[in-house]
């Protein structure tokens, strides 16, 4: 029996109750979405127009678009444009670098482990999944300890080879490298497993025929592996980019945004938009300005979303 996609069987006579039936199914979900997404969104916009912050906790008032003005101005005392631009640039750079590193690392390992003649490949595969299996908070804080300048394992090893003790988490540039590196450690198992399952879906005969026809390993890779994996991989690239773009918990947990910058926005040198927003809300109680920043982030996300939908042809799915 051929697979038929679902089609509504009855021409629904639109009597009141029948028509509302599908909506009844969705009501609980819509309720949660309203409470979890819509209401906070509305209030974010509302708060961004007030001066609700540490100095005005119970006596805030409406200030209109002032916070947005601050976000775009370069006034020496109230202009955050420089800081926000910098944050945005680093967030973007971080997301792109992580996406590239994670997918390449995951892909490379998937290719290596995919070889059926590799001894112990199942053991390797099981062991390599561990960074993914472990709870994220635990491992990130553990990495903080490992990268600790005075006591960490990395510096212990380096100093025993006489290579000195680099200040991994306090130097701005080294800290950024560490962020991308540790992120790679976390993320590659996910991609390894995913790409592995995609690779295993490629029929082996393709490779055999190509090998017989004299294609080198490299040519087989370029002309068989990549075209077969790309359709499934492409949407994941965008998802991964968006995920890293918002990966504030990771940044906050590993470096806390440190070292601090000399900017009046109060950002840290390794802060991304999300982690900066979080630390300003949690520690500086800077609610109104962060609400405005939140709205601006939302606009950026919408643009990314549109791009994602175009890229993955999401609209074509809906029939």
């Amino acid at each position, binding site marked *: 029996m051929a697979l038929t996609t679902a089609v509504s069987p009855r021409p629904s006579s639109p009597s009141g109750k029948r028509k509302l039936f599908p909506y009844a199914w969705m009501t609980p979900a819509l309720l949660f979405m309203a409470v979890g997404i819509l209401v906070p969104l509305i209030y974010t916009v509302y708060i961004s127009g007030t001066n609700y912050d*540490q100095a005005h*906790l119970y006596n805030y008032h409406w200030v209109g678009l002032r916070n947005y003005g601050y976000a775009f101005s370069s006034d020496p005392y109230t202009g955050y444009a420089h800081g926000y631009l910098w944050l945005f640039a680093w967030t973007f750079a971080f997301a792109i670098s992580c996406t590239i590193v994670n997918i390449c690392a995951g892909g490379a390992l998937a290719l290596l482990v995919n070889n059926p003649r590799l001894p112990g490949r199942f053991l390797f595969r099981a062991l390599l999944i561990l960074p993914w299996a472990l709870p994220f908070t635990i491992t990130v804080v553990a990495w903080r300890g490992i990268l600790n300048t005075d006591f960490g394992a990395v510096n212990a090893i380096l100093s025993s080879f006489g290579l000195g003790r680099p*200040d991994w988490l*306090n130097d701005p540039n080294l800290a950024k490298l560490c962020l991308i590196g540790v992120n790679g450690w976390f993320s590659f198992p996910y991609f390894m497993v995913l790409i592995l399952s995609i690779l295993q879906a490629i029929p082996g005969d393709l490779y055999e025929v190509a090998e017989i026809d004299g294609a080198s390993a490299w040519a087989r890779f370029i002309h068989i592996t990549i075209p077969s994996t790309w359709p499934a991989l492409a949407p994941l690239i965008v998802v991964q980019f968006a995920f890293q773009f918002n990966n504030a918990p990771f940044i906050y947990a590993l470096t806390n945004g440190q070292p601090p910058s000399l900017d009046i926005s109060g950002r840290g040198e390794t802060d991304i938009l999300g982690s900066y927003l979080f630390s300003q809300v949690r520690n500086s109680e800077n609610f109104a300005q962060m609400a405005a920043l939140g709205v601006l982030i939302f606009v950026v996300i919408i643009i990314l979303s549109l791009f994602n939908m175009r890229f993955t042809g999401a609209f074509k799915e809906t029939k």
Partner: protein
Amino acid sequence: MKRTILALSAAVLIILPSTGPGMVQAARPRAGATITVWEDFPNTALPQMQTLANKWAATNGDTVKFVSTSQPGMGGGSTSVTGLLQLKAKNKDAADLAYTTEDSVGTLVLSGIVAPRPKDLLSAADQAKYQTGAINATNVNGVPYSVPQVVDGLALYYNKQFVQTPPSTWPQLITMAKKLTKGNRYGFLFYITGGLYYTYWAFNAYGGYVFGNSGGKVDPTNIGLANAGAVQALTFLKSLAAIVPPTTDYNAADSNFSAGKVAMTINGPWALAGYQKALGINLGVAPIPSLPNGKTAQTFIGVRVWVVNNFSKNQAAAWDLAKYLSLNGQVISGTYEGRLPSFKMVPGWTPSAAQVAFSKAFSVGVPMPNIPAMAQVWTPMNNAINLVVQGHAGPATALNAALQQIKAGIAKQSS
């Protein structure tokens, strides 16, 4: 009529003796309310305070409930009393009275969370009992908002096993420290990442200041944290990185000193009990040495105060309780709380030798400014100090950036 007079006089005669000499009478606002107090007393002091409060409560039928920030439901110790006030002041079960730091009162005032002190609460005689710095610290922009309890600040602790006479100048200290640092023992270790609070004595001695005065009032537009003196001070602090690891945090300094591995440290009276238990007779306290430019080190004096929740329905009773605890609780604070009483003289209390040394150190201290603008100073300065000491920025650049950040924060606060 005669019987009534007899009864009344009998009542007065019975009541009068039950209040001992020197006990300050409590007034009688409404009866039967429960006054909730948010505090963070150490475990040693809480029972004593509770007993004292119960005495007050007995005289007017109220109950006093102490709620500690380390209790479940109250943030588990990671939220300060100030934080609790900011978060929950309007809740139904919010405190009426709270024990907090005087430099955070300014921000609370801006948000309308704390009530001004009634003008007639503390008579002139009462106010004269307090150290000048302490009673002045209760004024925010000239209006009193709190009742002082204790003062604290910083001094030099030293281990007599390694140091017989404490150094009186920094060059002396540095030489001593270098000689004593051997193996896993440190000559000198302190919370160098503690920011402005733990290093203000350096800024002050070189001519830096937080807020200047103009016309007798604190002027938040005159900030002296980036002037030439401040830059010199920060350079001096950076030079300390030669003997103190630049990432030393509070626990590293504290636990190592307790373990006898550190000869000298800088800390406050809250650590006194712990150190006395750990080092016994080997513990010594001295004022912080004077700076290389010859000026005395003047530590920040912090005052712990009682504030009343502006949204409370029992404000009169709360103020009364605050006055009672403050005027009658000085001995308890001195003995059990670890900080120093804010009175000039406390009859009935003998300070230990260490506490005498602390008093001497504090007598040249500088009270922390408590105008609302002060809250904007800490983070930028802490960041600047850490950046410079750890070698990521130059003193002048970092301080100028911090100045800008402080001004930005102040501009935002008042808008």
